[in-house]
């Protein structure tokens, strides 16, 4: 509560007055806001490409208006339902793991007694983030190869039959989610590690005195410290349920698993890069983004009611 405005009701400051009082805040916002307006809001006029037949030479406003033609084509396309299910299922399932595993990593890491080990491990788990998708996909192909892959060699060793992982549709989601976790869990845990190091030491001391077990400390001290950020990340992630790491999916996609791995991202890629269908891809993008935006609004109002954390 701002003391300067906390006066008894009768003398409620006017709106204008409040603005003047907080003029410095507006100044603080200025660079960020200017950037956003110039580089992200201004280009939004380009969204109308979705409603036109964009031809470069005619410019955006010169191109013919076609209304909802591209949207119709999109919704009526043969694989639309499959694309939607694949995209949503992949991300929803993934969301579960991507949000929880980093927290687990951070909390268990925080329990490690040896400080030096802790710091070294912290650095190590952060490195997989730099392994690009191209290399990671290459490594996956090698590890899971039906003839020479390590994984299959193990399976055969224990009497099983070699599995062609890259071909089977049911292996795609675990492979994708697993590899994404491998790449990013350590990276994402940075934030939580930071939050945990900010916890007041005296809380731990008090808890020890009270005879709390380690697990109880986790539950009553560490988790509450992490929950606000966790919730925020969750909300933000809900806005990405229709997106995908297209590059990685394309690398892991084979004709055998495409019934599961074909997602909106790969569909757009086929049209964007290879066929330069700007209007069509813009229309698809607009649909997906709008849905994501609505989803975030919904999730936001839920969390607002639940624990007060909100996006806006």
């Amino acid at each position, binding site marked *: 509560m701002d003391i300067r405005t906390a006066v008894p009701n009768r003398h409620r400051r006017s709106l204008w007055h409040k603005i003047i009082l907080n003029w410095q805040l507006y100044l603080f916002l200025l660079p960020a806001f200017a950037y956003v307006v110039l580089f992200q809001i201004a280009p939004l006029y380009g969204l109308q490409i979705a409603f036109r*037949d964009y*031809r*470069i*030479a*005619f410019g955006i406003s010169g191109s013919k208006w076609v209304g909802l033609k591209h949207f119709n*084509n999109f919704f009526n*396309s*043969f*694989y639309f339902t499959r694309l939607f299910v694949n995209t949503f299922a992949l991300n929803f399932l993934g969301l579960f793991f991507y949000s929880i595993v980093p927290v687990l990593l951070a909390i268990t890491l925080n329990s490690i007694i040896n400080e030096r080990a802790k710091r070294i491990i912290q650095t190590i788990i952060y490195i997989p983030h730099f392994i690009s998708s191209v290399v990671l996909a290459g490594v996956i*192909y090698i590890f899971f*190869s*039906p*003839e020479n892959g390590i994984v299959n060699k193990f399976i055969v060793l224990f009497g099983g039959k070699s599995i*062609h992982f*890259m*071909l089977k549709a049911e292996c795609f989601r675990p492979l994708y989610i697993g590899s994404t976790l491998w790449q990013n869990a350590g990276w994402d845990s940075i934030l939580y590690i930071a939050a945990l190091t900010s916890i007041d030491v005296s809380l731990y001391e008090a808890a020890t005195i009270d005879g709390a077990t380690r697990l109880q400390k986790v539950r009553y001290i560490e988790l509450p410290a992490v929950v606000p950020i966790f919730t925020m990340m969750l909300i933000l992630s809900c806005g990405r349920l229709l997106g995908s790491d297209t590059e990685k999916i394309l690398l892991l996609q*084979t*004709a*055998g698993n*495409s*019934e599961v791995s*074909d997602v909106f991202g790969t*569909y757009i890629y*086929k*049209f964007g*890069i290879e*066929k*330069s*269908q*700007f209007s*069509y891809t813009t229309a698809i993008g607009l649909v997906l983004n709008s849905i994501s935006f609505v989803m975030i609004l919904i999730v936001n109002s839920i969390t607002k009611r639940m624990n007060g954390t909100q996006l806006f």
Partner: protein
Amino acid sequence: MKRIAVLLLALVLCLVTLTDVGPALAEEKLTISVMQSVRDIDTIDVENNWAIKYLEEKTGVHVAYDMVKQSDWNTKLTLTLASGALPDVIWGPGALDAEEYGILQQLVIPLDGYLEECMPTLKSRFDMEPAATVALTASDGHIYGLPSYYFGSPATPNDGIPFIQKAWLDALNLEMPKTVDELTDVLRAFKTGDPNGNGIADEIPLSSTITDGANCSIFVLFSFWGIPTDGRTFFSLDEEGKVTFDPYRPGFRDALEWLNLLYAEGLMDVETLTQDVSTTTSKIADGVVGLFPFWRLTQMNIDANLETAAHLYGVAAEGYTPKMHTNLGYMTPRIYLTKDNQHVEETLRWFDAQLEKETMFNMYCGPKDGNWHYEEDGSLSYFSASGDWSQLCLNVQAMLNVPTPMYAAENINLSAAYVEKAVYVDAHREAGMLQTYPNTLLKIVPLSADDTYEINLILADIQTAVQEFVSKSITEGVTDESWNAFMDICGKLRVDEYISIYQNALDASGMI
């Protein structure tokens, strides 16, 4: 510690700003700007490149190059066109859609009016072989793009051929198979007979991919059933010149069933369905693969184990006449002048100068008696520049050369690689096993902008459906049920509409 860091940072900042762009050259000569595409593996040092300097001296025209890597080409071209700052010349890795950019948007200008006056060499080449100019004319009768054509004999199949390890056949005392059944027996023998004689059963009878179009891919084998599929769009031209959908052709199902048989018996490399070309190539290079569709044998950088392989052709499936795909030797337009070009005639003369015979080879191979020279009989032999040639010449994609097949035949000793493929084509043609109408016609027939939009929409889904069905059929086999379901899907994917669009375009173009 902190101070050292700050000092270092300041040093970096200074270094960086000092290495900024140097002063621009002030030129008296005519300067044209060329947006040039180069292959990803090429980085051409424009300042020091011998061929560029040579050309500038010869023609007196200074060129401001904007070299763009092929993989970035689409993005950069779009942005350049959108920004309105057009270069004088666009020299791409492929054709620009003349309908779109020439006729509709008028970003590039028609050039046929200048041919007589400014481009006599080019015109003489056109006159030598008018049929090869089929792809240059847009639907309004004008030529927008100047051709770039690489040396070669006309019907060189640009695509893959099945090869078999002859040494293995000899080791097992087998004849070259002439039917698919014989081939199957051969493959079985390869698997069990240890033909490479090393005591280990490491032979892979057949290894390939399904993602490489019609090059190093399993789809090359469909020619045994008379289906010269391109393995990518899955539409081809039948013997009457009609557009057909490959799965609709008789034999497609049988081909799939055969592949499934191979898969089930362990005669096909399981990874065929997931591996890419590089992996396949390295297996072939190891000498463990018996039958492999591939591009050619010579000059592939893995000569050692390919010396013992031989071209396999004439294998017929029962009841079918084999048909191998063929390519059309035609000139593809690649060089366009934009509407902002202020020196059209000079630019065209500049191009024309590059067509003179010795100039061409200087540009393509480097200085005389380096990578190219005259034989005693006066004919010309050349090698493609290898090693670090980026200082020496503008290789392939950066070049304009229009010898036309006839010219090439008269004047140039084609490299072994070309000769090799020409031999295969001739063998097929003599046996009546060559496709009459090349699939490439479908690539070059002009389509209206609306048609292109529809085609793109339809094709993406068709490709997905076919690839999935092929993969599933190979691993699990084809049943009446699965086949009918697939046919059903194809109907729903508007295959017939696609066919009729192309058929109409083809009929209207007069190419057949």
